[in-house]
């Protein structure tokens, strides 16, 4: 499947998302387009979650904006490898601004699962974590397994620079489907961020 030498376990997106969400209190989570936010939704809706229904590749930039606006709040961003490939330049921008309250997770299965599991142009030879490191995000690493993922998430909460965690995942589709109501998603998220009261 892949020619690069990796000792990282192939995990499951929904299980990892559940593990992350189960530890959260008031942290923001930005879920990238498609399966990434479907699994975030399925892990249990919370007002601090933002679900993208388009704008592929912008989970990290949106999360950067949240992190800059609220430097005291931890911000998680969940993004697929195919999505990140559309916006690799954002890694350099994030390295420049270096918000320490930002934790990025790249769910890497090497395929566009939702469109029919076609391989991405990066599949098998592009190391996303190496790209992040070369972009200036020194605090970037692959999670070896589920426990290592939880350890890296926990470690990121007290990091002095932004964190990027790569996870290899299987080819399973998302669990559940986000309710596609953009205004309600945005309004609830703003309520979760403490800048809006619900009507």
């Amino acid at each position, binding site marked *: 499947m892949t020619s690069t030498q990796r000792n990282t376990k192939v995990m499951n997106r929904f299980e990892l998302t559940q593990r992350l969400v189960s530890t959260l209190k008031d942290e923001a989570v*930005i879920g990238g387009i498609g399966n990434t936010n479907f699994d975030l939704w399925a892990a249990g809706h919370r007002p601090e979650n933002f679900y993208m229904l388009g704008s592929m590749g*912008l989970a990290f930039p*949106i*999360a*950067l904006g*949240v992190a*800059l606006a609220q430097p005291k709040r931890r911000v998680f961003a969940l993004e697929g490898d195919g999505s990140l490939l559309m916006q690799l330049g954002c890694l350099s921008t994030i390295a420049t601004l270096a918000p320490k309250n930002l934790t990025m997770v790249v769910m890497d299965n090497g395929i566009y699962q939702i469109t029919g599991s076609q391989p991405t142009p990066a599949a098998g030879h592009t190391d996303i974590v190496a790209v992040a490191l070369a972009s200036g995000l020194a605090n970037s690493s692959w999670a070896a397994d589920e426990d290592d993922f939880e350890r890296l998430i926990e470690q990121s909460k007290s990091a002095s620079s932004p964190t990027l965690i790569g996870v290899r995942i299987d080819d399973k589709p998302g669990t559940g489907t986000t309710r596609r109501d953009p205004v309600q998603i945005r309004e609830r*998220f703003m309520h979760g961020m403490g800048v809006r009261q619900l009507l």
Partner: protein
Amino acid sequence: MAAAEQASPQTSGTTWHGIVLQTLKRNEIKLVPYVPDRVLTTLIKNLHADPYFTTFPTAREEEAVGIVSGAWMAGMRGAVLMQTSGFATLANVLASLAVPYQIPLIMFVSERGTLGEFNYGQALVCRTMRPVLDSLAMEHHTITRLDELEFIADRSIKQAVTTQAPVALILSPLLTGGKTFDK
């Protein structure tokens, strides 16, 4: 805010870029990511020099749109600076983020491709801008006169915020002098 309003000719209301900077400040727009344009050089330099603003380059315009969208949802206002060809990369993010999520995205677009353009590609790209804005029924104004700039920019920013709708403020070469073929 009063302390920050000094009478430097670079940032005062006597130049188009001075008016834009002061209008951003008056409307509490602190976050200004951009993809640069020659015409925007002085504005960008002055934004960097003013500690009120968090301003920085992004690799693509849609990245900047994502950043200010996230920031607005978390309570910080922003605006994006770009040139015409940068706007041409935004149809997807406008149609799938700014418009449907009702985000008051504020864009300043330095207009290339008209009134003395020397690059045919820029001239063609420019012709795609207003049809894209109109196809999404987005508010947009082309600013040509210094005496109208503050009114249009200030009112448009306030309208964007109160109606939760994006706006594009197109800075015409008639206002900025544009980019001329020199060598």
